[in-house]
């Protein structure tokens, strides 16, 4: 192991870890004190008021109301404080910062497939530079999995049919466990791998290794042509279908009158379940591509459609 964790304290290797640990240790102190108090009181009473002891038993039944009110109200502010503290941290954990490096993760029984935006692919390994925010966009090909990196103190279920995201900024170079935390069948326990957090120089070296592959978007463009999307969606097509340039992140009016923002999930659903949401003003002629496109190709096509976002729209 590169990083023998200082047992029993797990390594803190992300920007999220110290925040989580602070709450954890505070809770440990509070709850420890509480347990000790209860145990001490019980022990004290057991010794003092054991049968046959000389302690006085007069007025053995004090009025309970003031006590009850006291120990109902006392924990309340403490609980509320802990709640707010943990909720604030949770909120931060659920909002990836702008400009985070986006990496696609496809989970399947029982491996993790990683796609970097430059097209580089890894299996059960993830190489990332230290100090840069990373946002994972994750999807499962089959059952529910969970991308868990204890050293980063974060995890997120990876669902079939729905993109979920997870983010962190690694703060310490090293090699860290990646675990699947959601039971997913036979080899759940070995559906893991390693996260390599690298110094920028080492990371550059890693990037320089081997042939630089096509970028994810370039691969997506190829898929877009081979699957025949371009036959309908190109500007000069005979079939009336919406142009897809620049739609990412913009509002899309639907035939039922609602307006949604185009995001990864919307693009995904448009391709797999085209009849779920139909673009306003068009006939629902687009065929479903469910079972015809793999999760990785789908990620690539979506990356391609997103890259079109930067292109100026031609005159319609």
């Amino acid at each position: 192991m590169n990083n023998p964790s200082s047992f029993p304290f797990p390594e803190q290797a992300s920007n999220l870890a110290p925040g989580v640990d602070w709450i954890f240790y505070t809770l440990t102190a509070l709850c420890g004190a509480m347990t000790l108090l209860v145990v001490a009181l019980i022990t004290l009473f057991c010794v003092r008021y054991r049968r046959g002891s000389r302690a006085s038993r007069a007025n053995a039944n004090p009025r309970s109301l003031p006590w009850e009110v006291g120990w109902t109200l006392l924990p309340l502010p403490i609980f509320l404080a802990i709640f707010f503290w943990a909720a604030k941290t949770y909120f931060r954990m659920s909002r990836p910062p702008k400009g985070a490096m986006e990496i696609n993760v496809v989970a399947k029984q029982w491996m993790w497939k990683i796609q970097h935006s430059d097209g580089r692919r890894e299996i059960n390994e993830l190489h990332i530079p230290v100090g840069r925010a990373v946002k994972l966009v994750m999807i499962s090909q089959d059952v529910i999995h969970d991308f868990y990196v204890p050293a980063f103190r974060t995890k997120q279920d990876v669902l079939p049919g729905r993109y979920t995201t997870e983010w962190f900024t690694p703060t310490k170079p090293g090699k860290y466990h990646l675990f699947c935390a959601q039971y997913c069948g036979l080899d759940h326990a070995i559906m893991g791998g390693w996260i390599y957090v690298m110094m920028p120089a080492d990371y550059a070296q890693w990037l320089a290794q081997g042939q630089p592959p096509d970028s994810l978007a370039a691969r997506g463009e190829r898929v877009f042509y081979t699957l025949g999307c371009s036959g309908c969606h190109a500007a000069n097509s005979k079939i009336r279908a919406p142009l897809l340039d620049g739609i990412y992140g913009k509002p899309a009016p639907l035939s039922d009158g609602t307006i949604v923002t185009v995001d990864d999930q919307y693009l995904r659903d448009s391709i797999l379940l085209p009849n779920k949401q139909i673009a306003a003003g068009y006939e629902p002629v687009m065929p479903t591509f469910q079972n015809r496109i793999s999760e990785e190709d789908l990620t690539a096509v979506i990356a391609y459609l997103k890259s079109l976002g930067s292109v100026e729209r031609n005159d319609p």
Partner: protein
Amino acid sequence: MNTETRELPMTLEPRANYLNDGHSIRSWLLTTDHKRIGLLYMVSITLFFFVGGAAAAMMRLELLRPQGGLVTSALYNKLFTMHGVIMVWFFLIPSIPTVLGNFLVPLMIGARDVAFPRLNLVSWYLFIAGGASALWAIIAGGVDTGWTFYTPYSSTYANGHVLAMAAGIFIAGFGSIATGLNFIVTIHKMRAPGLTWFRLPLFIWTIYTTSLILVLATPVLAITLTLMALERLFGVGIFNPAMGGDPLLFQHLFWFYSHPAVYIMILPSMGVVSELIPCFSRKSIFGYNFIAYATISIGVFGFLVWGHHMFVSSQSVYAGMIFSILSFLVSIPSAIKVFNWTATLYKGSITFQTPMLYAFGFIGLFTIGGLTGLFLAALAVDVHLHDTYFVIAHFHYIMVGGAVMGYLGGLHFWWPKITGRLYCEWLAKLAAVTIFAGFNLTFFPQFILGFMGMPRRYPVYAPEFQVLNVLSTAGASILAIGYLLPLAYLLWSLRYGKPAGANPWKATGLEWKTSSPPPRDNFANAPVVTEEPYNYDAQAAELSLEENSHA
């Protein structure tokens, strides 16, 4: 409480009681006597407990080494599924309500039986039919979905006898509903004259609340399992997104039942402890009304916190916040109870017989279990701890440290009433201490394992987790001995135990006013209640002690 029963002689056999009221197999299998039905349940859940325990033992042995090697992953997955299903639905949920509840509810309220004695017997048959279906699923090859049956794994991908297992739980569930209904009606309608709601033993309050949860929540479980089965059998797309379903819907439905189910398991134990503490400290319970209200509010709040199992499932962040704060709030009534039990000891006249040892064990372990629940209710911390061994440790402190300790405490307390015999006290104390020690050694290391990041449901694991796993397995062996001891000495007491007499603990409560074992119809004369519950007097207990020593 005042009843007009004559003093009964200390001899056993000649007098008619529910045990010698017919010796044929038929007289047991077709009985409608709530006491005999309680015993039928006791025998069946004990069998299930040791089946589920055997699965746990094999898991703990597998985990001795990081690379495993004792069982295959496939078998390990079946073992933890079997352990979970059996322990939750065929031991913990029925344990106190169907064994002690069946035996005691009519006795404690001064009734001759439950409201619907035949329905009561039907409940047991449903339970056995469900149990048989689950056991069949296990023997025929097993199920590897985990006791949570998460979709789409369970509905589409899992092999094995998922449907038979689910059918078992489904059928047993109807037994639970019928039992709940029976208790609710019994407690409403059949209380002895003078036994007002606020004179009821707290055990009855907890059984009442538990029954409400059983009746309201179990149908949701039945619906959920049915939907899962529909998807698995006919491909109706409900939970599998590939068929247009939503996998989170399953989790919402499942936990809407399964979180309240935690209270089904723990509330009756709290009821038992509320009987034990006053009796062995010769004090009236501190804050009776508050404990009763706390019981009800735990039952109600328990229905509103299911989403705390889904903080990393991609449930909305705002929903997460609401479930988090409600989970903090639900812990307050539990804390109230712990404080009240502690305060009851104040100026008591405390003795340390076996049931009291279990009560102390319960308070300690339940306190730790409850407080570690706060870690999991705190959103950001749960992101790290969810689905790790921390969760395993937490709920075992509640469900084994809490619920099982309560059950054993109750069993030891009412055993003389149930059987008419006393067990060997020093062995029983030894067992109680062994269980307490073994339990802590088994489960405390798992809190640390979880914090270090070891996920649950792993037959093989990273080497740095080994030391704590070895400790845990060592604890489990001690725990196993602790659980086998009572089996031995309680069985022994059936034949060789000293006769107990009607009231060996000098306890208040109507069940102690009749002979041990009670007659078929419970009371020779219908009891009338004129006093508050827990009418103990520590001062008098001390005085009588002094008089005895002077005499």
